[in-house]
């Protein structure tokens, strides 16, 4: 995904992390927008459920999306 793009969350590849992400509102079927990255490329900022969430790239990589 590129900054500014919107996608739909389809699932997670990490069992442990998925619980945290679900609780933070990253739900399958929910739209997510990639806002911008930190200056060094990591972490990144996404919008989900109407708020801004920052997470590391390796954490973001566990979220699968539908385009």
């Amino acid at each position, binding site marked *: 995904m590129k900054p500014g793009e919107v996608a739909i969350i389809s699932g997670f590849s990490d069992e*442990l992390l998925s619980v*945290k992400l679900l609780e933070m509102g990253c739900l399958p079927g929910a739209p997510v927008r990639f806002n911008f990255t930190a200056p060094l490329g990591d972490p990144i900022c996404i919008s989900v459920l109407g708020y801004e969430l920052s997470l590391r790239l390796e954490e973001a990589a566990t979220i699968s999306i539908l385009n």
Partner: protein
Amino acid sequence: MSAERLKIALVGNPNSGKSSVFNHLTGLNQKIGNFPGVTVEKKSGMTILPDGSAAEIIDLPGIYSLYPRSLDERIVSEILLDHASPLCPDKVVVIADATNLKRSLLLLTQITDLGMPTVLALNMMDLVARAGISYDLHALSNELGIPVVPINARKGSGIDELKNVISKPIEVPGKNVFNIYPDLKLAVQSVRDRFQLDNDYEAYQFLQQPASLKFLNDEGREFLRNVSDTYGFFPGKFQGAEAIHRYTFIQTLLDRVVLKAADLPWKKHTSAIDRVLTHRVWGYLIFFAILFLIFQSIFAWAEVPMDLIDSGFAAISEYFGKILPNTMLTRLLTEGVIPGIGGIIIFVPQIAILFAFIALLEESGYMARVVFLMDKIMRKFGLNGKSVVPLMSGVACAIPAIMATRTIDNWKERTITIFVTPLMSCSARLPVFTILVALVVPDKFVLGVFSLQGLALMGLYLLGFAAAMLTALVMKYLVRVKERSYLLMELPAYRWPKWSNIGYTIVEKTKTFVLEAGKVILAISIVLWVLASYGPGEKFEHAREHVLNESANLRLTPEGLESRVAAYKLEHSYAGIIGKGIEPVIKPLGFDWKIGIALVTSFAAREVFVGTMATIYSIGSDDNQTIKDRMREEINPETGGPRFTPATAFSLLVFYTFAMQCMSTLAIVYRETKGWKWPLLQLAYMSALAYISSFAVFQLLS
């Protein structure tokens, strides 16, 4: 029950305005302590309900779910689940950011499922109106089966209504949002029977997070493990499914109660600011400009009040010295206790200014961006983006800095941050640096603008910072833990800070510093006073006669005589004897026994160095000289040259940069890490680093 005070817990997401609600309810009637057995800060306070009764309000750490992500968050589950605990609340107020109701309701439904009488306080109703959102609050209250109170914690509106609702009996909703899966019904029933619980979801929590429940004994834990094994369950199982189930329920609920959704799906205003503040060039430039401003303020604005406190306490000592009879107790008061208290109070201006800035950055939402900017760099060193705040604070004082590490969820990253923070040059090192730099670095300018002395001083700060980062890097590979490191942090919308919240933070942090660190500093300064004021044998007792004999040929003024007597006494006091005792050890570093005395006395607090030097070097010099001049004229009897050669002075500077000469820091590390392991390791490591570096510097330069 009626005789007991009502206990009310405040629960909510981070950034939901929980602390504003707490401040409104309790005012300055707050008490900061620790939850028993853990280092989580416990904030509680009193409020008067409309019926005239007092209620205790407990502010719990901000959480997104009952399932904890960090050690600090475990306390919430523990308190809510331990009915035997005196802290277990009678009622819970869930504070929700009404602009983000969906996420807040996840936590709310978990708490109502526990069967706790709950009130939902919808905060930030003003922002809701501005975003164009509108809720049917009656329907929301009916659907959830609990009272709902709209509030605006920034303005304080709705707080009276909230108190009103709290004081009345609260119905518990009849049915749960999340029902235990049929396979686990029997497991849950056996847990309920064993621990006499009256709620399925509560028993389910026992199975889900036995590690959070510190009140369980080994037998209880063993029982839970057996039940889990029997039914093929393990802690963490179904947590994701539960979240999805709850969100499905919440979505259906919201479809009915949201009359109008937000006008804009993504926040525009905040992202415009973020484009500048997290820009690859401007982002860092602005951050460093803010850092620079903070350090400037700490040193520039704090100077006047610090001087006032210094002279104020000197005046108090003098006053008591005059009006009280000259006894041992008086001297203990005027030379030990009062300067000891002064030594604590003198740091209050710097700590207050520092925390004013940190609170300002946190309140406005900028601090989350600092973490965002620095996370990648800090992670390379085994730290976390959140380590930036403690390291910054460490330049003022390591004590509040170490207390600020509590926001770091990951145990390893937090421990490393605590370990390296005292290497940041704190303000107590500054007087030592100033005097030694002035002694050996020429007062010249390079390139016309840079003062050599200023550069040397800055170099010492950088040296401390570099040592902190390198130590962290080494520890990253030495400390082995399996715990995973997360970031997953909300970037809250930018807001104007609420000044009263900043005021409360300053009061709270300063109070903690004065009480926690103060005890240790005071105790040690009394011990040191005794060591420096008493000595064994005839030489100490008849100091005056000895000085008079030795200086019979000199025409001394009365003050000159007094200072010589004082110096002579110090030389033959217990402190002096210790100084001479350690001379062989510190000789390779270029120090003599006189510096040894200063090292001993500054073990409790570094800034004592200057005062000790002032007393000890009053030997054999004229009266009207400054400490600096006296130190400059001191002769090394072995070489015939000056005692403070550049080699000795730089060696001493390096020693003070690295050495752990602060009892209060050790005490705080002990408290924060819950044991002696880390403070002792820290003491050993920093002393070794100081000794070896000083040795290298002295041997290279001389």
